[in-house]
């Protein structure tokens, strides 16, 4: 049943996302073209009218990039919110569990979030294509090798950063879902209740984050206070220092990762509980 729900969720959202992405990529191409023309034609580069057109198109592109981010967030929220309204009379009478409903919305929301991120980054790369930025990609490799030479593991760091990105995205989506599932039980106004629940979650999370940060800083300060960051004559950190930094990064990211994982599970369980035991489609 989950795969069937996913099918309808993708069908429901694909059109608007693909249109938005198409518009952004088109604007990126136009801007790349304008920049190329300006750099290759001396007549155009001196024209104030052309300069104005280039600026306007670049502003339009910037707005479109922001719009992609906003549209992504709005669609993710609206899809779940509407499921708890009139459309819920269809979705909640299907022989499907609340877990499957949440997972289908979550998976599709996550996919579109990542897709939006990729499209925005790709469009930026397109816009600045005429500056031949790709020629500098080689320096990434040398920086990578320099980090490895220092005793660091940039590969592992990349994996950790990506994992943290995934967990935090999932956690924030589930936070919205839980707020919307609880909302109608808090206030008569479904929207008002959802916003209020989200605000409560926001402040609770701030407190939790503060607590985690304090625990982390106390734990870290004892273990890592004797790190010597001095760079030797060879321009290298000592093996002990590099190893200590590696431990610091892994301890911090593991703590934050576990925190968001636990929060994600809590939000999921809250949403599921209120969608099964407290469902009230008025």
């Amino acid at each position: 049943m989950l795969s069937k729900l996913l099918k309808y969720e993708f069908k429901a959202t694909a059109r608007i996302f693909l249109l938005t992405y198409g518009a952004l990529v088109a604007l990126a191409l136009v801007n790349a073209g304008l920049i190329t023309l300006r750099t290759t034609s001396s007549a155009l580069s001196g024209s104030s009218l052309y300069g104005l057109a280039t600026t306007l198109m670049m502003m339009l592109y910037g707005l479109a990039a922001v719009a992609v981010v906003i549209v992504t967030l709005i669609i993710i929220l609206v899809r779940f919110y509407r499921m708890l309204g009139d459309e819920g009379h269809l979705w909640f009478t299907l022989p499907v569990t609340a877990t499957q409903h949440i997972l289908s919305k979550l998976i599709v929301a996550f996919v579109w979030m990542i897709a939006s991120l990729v499209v925005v980054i790709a469009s930026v790369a397109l816009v600045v294509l005429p500056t031949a930025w790709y020629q500098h990609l080689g320096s990434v490799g040398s920086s990578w090798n320099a980090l490895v030479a220092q005793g660091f593991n940039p590969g592992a760091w990349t994996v950790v950063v990506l994992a943290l990105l995934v967990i935090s995205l999932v956690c924030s989506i589930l936070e919205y879902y839980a707020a919307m599932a609880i909302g109608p039980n808090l206030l008569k106004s479904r929207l008002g209740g959802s916003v209020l629940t989200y605000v409560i979650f926001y402040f609770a999370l701030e407190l939790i984050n503060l607590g985690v940060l304090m625990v982390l800083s106390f734990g870290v300060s004892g273990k890592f206070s004797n790190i010597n960051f001095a760079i030797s004559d060879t321009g290298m950190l000592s093996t002990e220092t590099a190893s200590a930094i590696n431990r610091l990064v892994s301890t911090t990211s593991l703590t934050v990762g576990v925190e968001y994982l636990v929060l994600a599970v809590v939000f999921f369980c809250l949403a599921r509980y209120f969608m099964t035991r407290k469902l009230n489609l008025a």
Partner: protein
Amino acid sequence: MGTILQAQGLTKRFGQTTALDNVELSLESGRIVGLLGPNGSGKTTFIKIASGLLTPTAGQVLIDGVAPGPQTKAQVSYLPDRTYFDNWMKVSDCLELFADFYQDFDRVKANDMLHSLGIDASKTFKTLSKGTQEKVQLALVMSRQAKLYLLDEPIGGVDPAARDFILDTIIRNYNEEGTVVISTHLISDIEKVLDDVIFLWDGRIERTDSVDHIREQSGKSVDEVFREVFKC
């Protein structure tokens, strides 16, 4: 015939308002039941609880011995008092959705019904008139071979000709081993198709009886009895 629906001490409160008050009810299979009552009497609340869209404050409702959940939803065909399809959906998507999720959905029957109504399946649902949207939903709901049909105000807000069509569609298409519950306050239009009636008033059951018995006992139509019971 066994019991298809049982309500035990069923109570639902919305804040200070009691929508259903300790309802005790048992419905047998193979009957067409009218859930009758004035506006605000708790008809929709009862149907929504049985469909799993509302959680009771106290008591329970059992469908074929099971509390509302995915298992009962596979057996209950529910028609809401509103349109519920997403704006992007074409009529063909609505059909596909029912075929995907309900094993008891008869796609051929649904297509035939839509064809006889002259509804183009390639049209987007939101572009249809409200009456046509309701007919599409009714065609889909009645194309299931369900054990229990819960139809919330299927003839509310439509003209008399459309009412006849809707009732005719219900009678010609329901699974005869199943039970049909039709909620309405338009008794005169519907009583000809009913086997039993439940009079609901202010969240409480005032009377449950068979239509034949009501007529024999009172010498009046159900509509006339209803007007006496719910006289303002």
